[in-house]
């Protein structure tokens, strides 16, 4: 049954004429700006928290190559390191905008189904779920590794495995949400339990069925573990900052603004 609104002619004209600038544009700007802010902060934090482990891993890798009798050009490595560190913040911005684009789409479609009436809380809640689904769970199967772990000849195979697990995790979470919203009646706790059961079962099977990372680890395991904790810490912080920034901007600019048309 269609909803009936009473509006003045001016209000309607403004609504239609300004649809692009008043709704689509704020949505895009909020999404991109929040990703850029969160990504910039991620890049800065990584320079302090993650970079020391990357430096250490590259140092060990270089020592290993020298001991193996390889011809190592140290000047070239130093030059690469300046270039690589220089890209940390820019890489963070690109990463941030990329994930905020996905976040914005999911938020726009799921906003009504998210708990509470506060957009900031909704955004932080969704960011927590997406961090779990798109980072934490994939990292349990294919965790982050510092340089010196990973053979060049297996890169496309490993990328395929990583993307496969990532897509399974994201698609399963979406499917579980769609099922409980459209097919299941009952209390919220019952719906959440069913969604968690569906997601958990599919991911457990995927975890057991998908092949492991094929590369051997040849540097100290404590360096790898601390690197993984550092990575998990900064990426989790990134998602928190993204949710907070996005929710704050959404609350302020209200790109969903439809409330100015009063329903009788």
């Amino acid at each position, binding site marked *: 049954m269609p909803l009936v609104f009473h509006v003045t002619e001016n209000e309607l004209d403004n609504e239609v004429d300004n649809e692009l600038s008043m709704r689509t544009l704020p949505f895009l700007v909020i999404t991109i700006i929040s990703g850029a802010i969160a990504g910039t902060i991620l890049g800065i934090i990584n320079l302090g928290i993650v970079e020391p482990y990357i430096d250490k891993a590259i140092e060990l890798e270089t020592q290993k190559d020298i001991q193996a009798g390889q011809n190592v050009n140290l000047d070239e490595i130093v030059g690469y390191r300046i270039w690589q560190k220089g890209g940390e913040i820019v890489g963070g911005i690109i990463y941030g905008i990329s994930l905020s684009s996905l976040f914005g789409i999911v938020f726009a479609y799921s906003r009504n189904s998210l708990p509470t009436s506060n957009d900031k809380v909704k955004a932080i809640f969704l960011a927590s779920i997406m961090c779990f689904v798109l980072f934490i769970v994939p990292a349990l199967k294919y965790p982050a590794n510092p340089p010196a772990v990973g053979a060049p000849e297996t890169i496309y195979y490993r990328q395929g495995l990583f993307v496969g697990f990532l897509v399974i995790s994201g698609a399963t979470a979406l499917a579980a949400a769609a099922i409980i919203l459209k097919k299941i009646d009952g209390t919220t706790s019952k719906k959440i339990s069913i969604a968690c059961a569906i997601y958990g079962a599919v991911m457990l099977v995927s975890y057991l069925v998908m092949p492991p990372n094929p590369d051997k680890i040849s540097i100290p395991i404590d360096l790898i573990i601390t690197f993984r904790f550092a990575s998990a810490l900064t990426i989790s912080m990134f998602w928190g900052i993204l949710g907070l920034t996005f929710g704050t901007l959404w609350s302020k600019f209200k790109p*969903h603004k439809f409330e100015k048309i009063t329903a009788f």
Partner: protein
Amino acid sequence: MDKPTNYLYILDILKNEMSYSRQLLIKRSDISKVAIGILVAIMLFGFFVVGFDQGQLFSLVEGKQAFDSKWLHEFTHDMRHAAGFPCH
């Protein structure tokens, strides 16, 4: 963005102190398809640049040499490791 897709508006127009109504059916998409398309494109491009490029993008202008120099790959190298993408 949080309402059903189609709305029926009843437009009340007051003109010359006379009141009358007319109905207007406006079909509108709640979430702009243009915005979704732009965001999907940004997401895929950004994800590829940070997480997966092995010289493919620069090879469009630099040729096969891009797969050896991997300038873009190296530029996002540290973020790639930190974000958990496979590398090398």
